[in-house]
């Protein structure tokens, strides 16, 4: 086994619990308006899942999925989704932040779609928070200050 990442035990534990943490994050995301939770908590937990993988399996594990450019993409996409759903009120002439979907067919309560725009907002925020925070962690963990001669240099860790 290559020595990257943490010890063997942590790796196997991560394998075990990672799906459950991911499931919990998705639960918070999609049922944010019916039970405690919401876009932010879900986004941070999902970012935590990727951080866990990077910590346990070393940088290579995740790099193929999420590198710097792709997390920029997800972050900007999440933010644009949120802004677009917020502006949907303007396009339909009702005003900036109106809950368009709810007024259309939000009659039944305690349903998945009963919140109207709220679920879409949650998805946009979660996507943005996940990508953004993971990128901050990824860059912080990748750059290490290495002492080269007298000068300290920021080096990208191989």
């Amino acid at each position, binding site marked *: 086994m290559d020595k990257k990442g943490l010890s063997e035990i942590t790796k196997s534990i991560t394998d075990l619990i990672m799906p459950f943490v991911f499931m919990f994050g998705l639960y918070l995301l999609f049922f944010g308006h019916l039970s*405690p939770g919401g876009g*932010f908590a879900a986004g941070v937990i999902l970012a935590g899942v990727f951080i866990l993988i990077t910590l346990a399996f070393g940088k290579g594990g995740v790099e193929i999925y999420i590198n710097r450019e792709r997390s920029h993409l997800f972050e900007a996409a999440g933010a644009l989704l949120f802004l677009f759903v917020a502006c949907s009120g303007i396009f339909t002439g009702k005003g900036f932040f109106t809950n368009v979907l709810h007024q259309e067919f939000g009659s039944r309560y305690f349903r998945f779609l009963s919140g109207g725009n709220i679920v879409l907002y949650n998805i946009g925020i979660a996507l943005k928070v996940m990508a953004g*925070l993971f990128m901050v962690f990824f860059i*912080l963990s990748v750059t290490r*200050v290495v002492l080269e001669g007298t000068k300290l240099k*920021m080096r990208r860790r191989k």
Partner: protein
Amino acid sequence: MIYFFVFLLFAIGLYGVCCKRNIVKMIVGFTLLDYSVFLFLIMIGYRKDGQAPILDRKSLLDVFVKQSVDPLPQALVLTAIVIGLAVTALMVALAVRIYERYGTFDITNIKKLKG
């Protein structure tokens, strides 16, 4: 009386920010300062043995309105916590960069600027 703890935590946070030489200790001080303000905001909204402001199928509306805690400070704190996280992340990025340029976290010998 219970607000006394909030003022105390605020004072500890201020102490951490003003009198600590190490940048990371200052960041810890700032986080404590933020925590005390969030605690204060939520304590304002608390109602005597109130329940969480989340409805479910069985709860009656008028009992719910009488019983539950004030939801507005919670919305404010939710936003403020993420602002606090954003500021902490930026400060840590700055601290790493300062360490790279100055070689130390100690603020007293980071004095390149002309006063």
